[in-house]
């Protein structure tokens, strides 16, 4: 063994009593306004999508003209994104836990079909049928959650499988029958409840739109100001760490998927209000649209980061683009192309902010 020069053993720690106690301050740089902005944007994850939303409104307003700024047009955008808003809320919960739910659209449609068929095929009172729809949504969510949390399968795969299973069940069960709007409004207007509206001036707000906004606000509160919400973020961030820290990870995961299922069922009910009838072929693009809203809303697909308000702004951005481009009169394919660009650039901006500011 080489000779050691100091045999004082532990004694060197004696000096610690005199060690400096000042707080290390690394932060003596001048901050430019741009940096301040970045910091602001970074600490408010919903700020970027909000700014993009306002900017796209302004730009389309300039191009399309005053028509675009009519209360009617603006509330129309809300009506058109209401369904995506609901499904996106469900998707947000799941994505915050670092999952992804490809079955949201299928659950929504199956729930709405159950609400309709239970009323018209079996003659249940609409109230009971609606409850049955919610039960189906919750059950689908529970299966998803149990497979993810208990069997520990990757959410992408579980919901990919469940998507196919639920959609096939939906077609097999409904025998592809549409229930007509007129029949519903005659014998079970409750099913169309969310189609009712309040008009203020030219603005038309359906109950569905109002409920969507309230739901998102409520979820925003729950996610940020209750234990459950914090646990959702923690589970998405690092499930092992959360488990060791004492979070009931399995229970949290299952509750998130069940919640998502319930919200999808609610979306199914709202869907009846929007399209009037009960159609088993509706909502085919709800998956992609909800994921798009979540992504443009700045929520990380890796879980644990982002705000549900961002999702709502994301959905509205897509709505503004779609309506705006149509009013300009472009080929619908251009809309898809632009939305594709929007998805990529939204995330690129988000990345940029995150990189520079801490």
């Amino acid at each position, binding site marked *: 063994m080489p000779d050691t020069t100091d045999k004082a053993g532990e004694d060197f720690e004696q000096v610690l009593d005199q060690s400096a106690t000042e707080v290390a301050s690394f932060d003596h740089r001048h901050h430019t306004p741009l940096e301040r902005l970045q910091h602001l944007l970074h600490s408010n994850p919903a700020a970027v999508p909000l700014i993009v939303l306002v900017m796209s409104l302004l730009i389309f307003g300039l191009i399309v003209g005053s028509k675009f700024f009519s209360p*009617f047009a603006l509330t129309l955008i809300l009506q058109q994104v209401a369904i995506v808003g609901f499904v996106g809320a469900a998707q947000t919960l799941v994505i915050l836990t670092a999952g992804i739910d490809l079955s949201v659209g299928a659950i929504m449609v199956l729930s709405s079909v159950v609400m309709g068929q239970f009323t018209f095929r079996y003659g249940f009172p609409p109230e009971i049928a609606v409850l049955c729809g919610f039960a189906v949504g919750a059950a689908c969510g529970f299966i998803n959650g149990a497979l993810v949390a208990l069997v520990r399968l990757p959410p992408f795969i579980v919901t990919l499988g469940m998507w196919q299973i639920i959609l096939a069940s939906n077609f097999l069960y409904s025998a592809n029958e*549409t229930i007509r709007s007129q029949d519903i409004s005659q014998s079970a207007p409750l099913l169309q409840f969310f189609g009712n509206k309040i008009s203020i001036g030219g603005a038309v707000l359906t109950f569905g739109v109002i409920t969507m906004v309230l739901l998102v606000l409520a979820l925003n509160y729950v996610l940020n100001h209750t234990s459950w919400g914090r646990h959702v973020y923690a589970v998405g961030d690092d499930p092992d760490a959360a488990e060791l820290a004492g979070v009931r990870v399995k229970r949290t995961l299952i509750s998130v998927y069940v919640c998502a299922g319930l919200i999808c069922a609610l979306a199914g009910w709202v869907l009846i209000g929007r399209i009037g009838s009960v159609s088993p072929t509706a909502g085919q693009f709800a998956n992609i649209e909800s994921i798009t809203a979540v992504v443009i809303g700045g929520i990380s697909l890796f879980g644990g980061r982002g705000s549900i308000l961002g999702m709502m702004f994301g959905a509205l951005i897509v709505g503004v683009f779609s309506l705006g481009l149509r*009013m300009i009169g472009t080929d619908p394919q251009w809309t898809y192309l632009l939305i594709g660009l929007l998805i990529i650039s939204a995330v690129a901006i988000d990345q940029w902010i995150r990189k520079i500011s801490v």
Partner: protein
Amino acid sequence: ETIGACLITKTDTNPFFVKMKEGATAKAKELGIELKSYAGRIDGDSESQVAAIETCIVDGAKGILITASDTKGIVPAVQQARDAGLLVIALDTPLEPIDSADATFATDNFLAGELIGQWAAATLGDEAKNAKIAMLDLAVSQPSVGVLRDQGFLQGFGIDLKDPGKWGDEDDPRIVGNEVTAGNEEGGRTAMENLLQKDPGINVVYTINEPAAAGAYEALKAVGRENDVLIVSVDGGCPGVQNIADGVIGATSQQYPLLMASLGIEAIAAWAKDGTKPTNTEGKDFFDTGVALVTDQPVDGVPSIDTKEGMDKCWG
């Protein structure tokens, strides 16, 4: 040995095809034919249809009834089946070229469109020249059914078609715009909202089918215009005919999928028995299974049946 037959539809979720399948199944049972049905996942899913044709060949079926998603693209697969000795009958949608199939049992979709076009023009009378028309089409890929109905409607309404193989290239100022609906309620509503946004004065709405029409009606109802707009459609499904009776849709062109399917099964049975092939309707290069205008507000010069009769003949 039992005779095998295949029915291949575009999807198995659209009521039109569901009904077609019911008709075929009933007829097959009656004639003692073993029928297997296949479908694409969505409209436009041609690969699934190719795979289905191949399965029928392996399976030793005698004939195939098909509503093709990709009328040009499916031709080589159809040829393969015919080479293997199967009778291939195109239902509802002609292949391109039409003689790629042994026979075609179809609605004249152009005529179907023309009837509702004429009806709409006649109903409006002099106002027709100031009409503001919304065109709710099927899909951006412009499948032939959608094009034929759309162009037929415009022809009937008296609008210059430009290229009759394409919608959207017309420059008549009466057309407010074309929007796609995917043939369902959701698409119908959004498309209608968008066109209303472009021009709130729309007073004629052409729709590709009745679910799209129902969606468009919801959008009109939302702005309180459901009573002063003329909606026309194509299909003649029972919910659609009921919607005419309820005043949701003004008129629709009814087609007969059950008839197509049962005639198809009979043709396959005949082919299996003694090799006879079906013949075309005179003057047309396909067997026309007929189309009828259903409306409760008949106009002069356009033959039509009322909703009562329509209900008797309806499907879905």
